[in-house]
């Protein structure tokens, strides 16, 4: 339990750090970005939207920085991120809320799938070390880790949608369909999700495979694996119950480290496919200089990553009795 509490503490600390970074960047970076940002806004916005942004950015706000900071924290706790510049007078939270389920569905499901598959492949590859599988797969996956997410997306579009128009290349679903739990909509959603999902899968699985494989290799050299062989246990049992279960632990740590990168890549994938998730929204916010939106989305994505890390930590606690029964 102490372990989980410690990890919860880390989660909160990092959350606080992210919130503070978010607050600090526009106000404390050299080159006074706020001034330059306001200068750019003046050309484009008037009236209410302009005032809203000014309030958000703290222009002409004569409160001390500390007061502004505390107000900011309070607003974040209430999910109040102000009004969007692009979609004024819609609030940022409302806009983001509509995009969130798309990303959760696409990125969340695909990442879990990639992790599970990648870890499994890594375990089997290490188990059959020296065999043909292990000679071919690791180099392939090393190469795969070098593939840019957005390029894979574009190539998949090229092959599966342009050259052979089998799959849709943009958006979350076909236009003209009513959203809801009807078969047409759902099947359209699934269809539109295939290419982005496969992109993320291809681009991210390599890392999981290599992390697990390396962890397995170390684990397989342990005495308890040899002992399992000595007991005459069937091979598959040794591989999963003795080797993989132990190798999973560093693998989960690796998951926590790499998940940020996967989410970053997913942002680009959403952009290429114009998939209406938070990643796409983030890029649009930047392109349109919708500052309140940018802030909120950065926070949201960070929180999502932190939650994933916390989940991985909890999984570690479940799998590893050392952390549960630490003296």
């Amino acid at each position, binding site marked *: 339990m102490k372990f989980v509490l410690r990890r919860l503490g880390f989660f909160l600390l990092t959350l606080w750090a992210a919130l503070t970074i978010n607050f600090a960047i526009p106000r404390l970076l050299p080159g006074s970005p706020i001034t330059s940002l306001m200068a750019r806004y003046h050309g484009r916005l008037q009236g209410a939207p302009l005032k809203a942004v000014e309030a958000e950015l703290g222009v002409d706000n004569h409160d001390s920085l500390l007061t502004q900071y505390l107000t900011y924290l309070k607003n974040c706790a209430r999910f109040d991120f102000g009004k969007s510049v692009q979609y004024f007078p819609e609030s940022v939270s409302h806009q983001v809320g509509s995009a969130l389920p798309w990303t959760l569905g696409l990125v969340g499901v695909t990442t879990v799938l990639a992790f599970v598959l990648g870890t499994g492949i890594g375990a089997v590859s290490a188990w059959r070390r020296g065999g043909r599988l292990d000679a071919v797969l690791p180099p392939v996956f090393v190469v795969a880790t070098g593939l840019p997410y957005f390029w894979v997306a574009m190539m998949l579009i090229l092959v599966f949608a*342009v050259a052979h128009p089998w799959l849709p290349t943009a958006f979350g679903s076909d236009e003209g369909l009513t959203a809801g739990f009807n078969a047409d909509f759902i099947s359209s959603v699934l269809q539109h999700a295939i290419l982005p999902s496969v992109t993320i899968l291809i681009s991210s699985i390599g890392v999981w495979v290599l992390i697990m494989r390396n962890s397995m290799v170390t684990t397989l050299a342990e005495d308890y694996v040899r002992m399992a062989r000595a007991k005459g246990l069937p091979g598959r049992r040794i591989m999963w119950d003795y080797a993989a279960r132990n190798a999973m632990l560093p693998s989960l740590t690796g998951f926590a480290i790499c998940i940020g990168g996967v989410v970053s890549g997913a942002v680009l994938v959403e952009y290429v496919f114009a998939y209406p998730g938070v990643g796409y929204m983030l890029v649009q916010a930047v392109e349109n200089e919708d500052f309140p939106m940018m802030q909120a989305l950065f926070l949201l994505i960070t929180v999502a990553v932190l939650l994933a890390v916390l989940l991985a930590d909890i999984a570690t606690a479940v799998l590893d009795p050392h952390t549960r029964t630490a003296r």
Partner: protein
Amino acid sequence: MTATLDAAVPLTGRRIPGSSVARAMAGNRKALAGLLILVFFVVLAAVPDWIAPGDPAASRYGRSLGASAHHLFGTTGFGQDVAAQVVHGTRPILLIAVLSGVFATLLSVLIGVSAAYLGGLWDDLLSLFTDVILVIPVLPLVVVIAGYFAHRSLTVMIAALVVTGWSYGARQLRAQALSLRGRDFLEAARVRGERRSYIIVVELLPNMTSLIIANFMNVALYSVLTASGLEFIGLGDTSSVDWGTMLYWAQNQAALQTDQYLWAAVPGLCIALLSTSFALLNNAFDEISNPALRPVRRLRG
């Protein structure tokens, strides 16, 4: 990716960094492949005007031409030669990769080794700091940072990459420094009365060479992908000639949908190749620094 060095460090501790590393690399096929690709791009970056003379950004040719003897990869929607752009685009990305790599690695070594060597509260604080930075997702952070600056410069990009990219290396180097800390040769140096800084720089660091290089490759890989990604969504200098920006314009002009495949495929392929070369080299140096990961020689019969 564990960081143990047991088999590779001889008892006396004194190593000539490079000699055995070079030998180990020569025997590693992945390293050779990565090196070959990297050398190819370095050549392109070194003498672009030689290979593709003229201004690659000038719209001199017919628009959206296909591949031909005149234009190896055809022309862009603005009438520029794709191949020339690709060649000239090599230097910026390589510069970004190398500079980010060097500075981020320096930071990693500084923080990672200090944490390991200082121990105690310092170690706890530095490690916590490292972990916090490590977990925060990079692209959203860099997007937000870059988004505030209207004037997009190389410096900002590199600074953002360095600030976000050092943490993983610091973790790994700290782990390895910790495992080397108890070694006899370091004890011997301490007993001899050497200053701590001497011990770290002259005795400890040379033994961490391959892991340091592996980390450099890792940051380079990460920089290439992230910088290209940023350029792709328009956060780089959109008037400059580099691969990510080429892809930005290609996407902007719907190149894929309008039969201009090469405009999108070629620069993307280069990004993939360059980052793959770093990935291969990273993997190779990982194996060198941890002999347990090396390919197993099966004994048959």
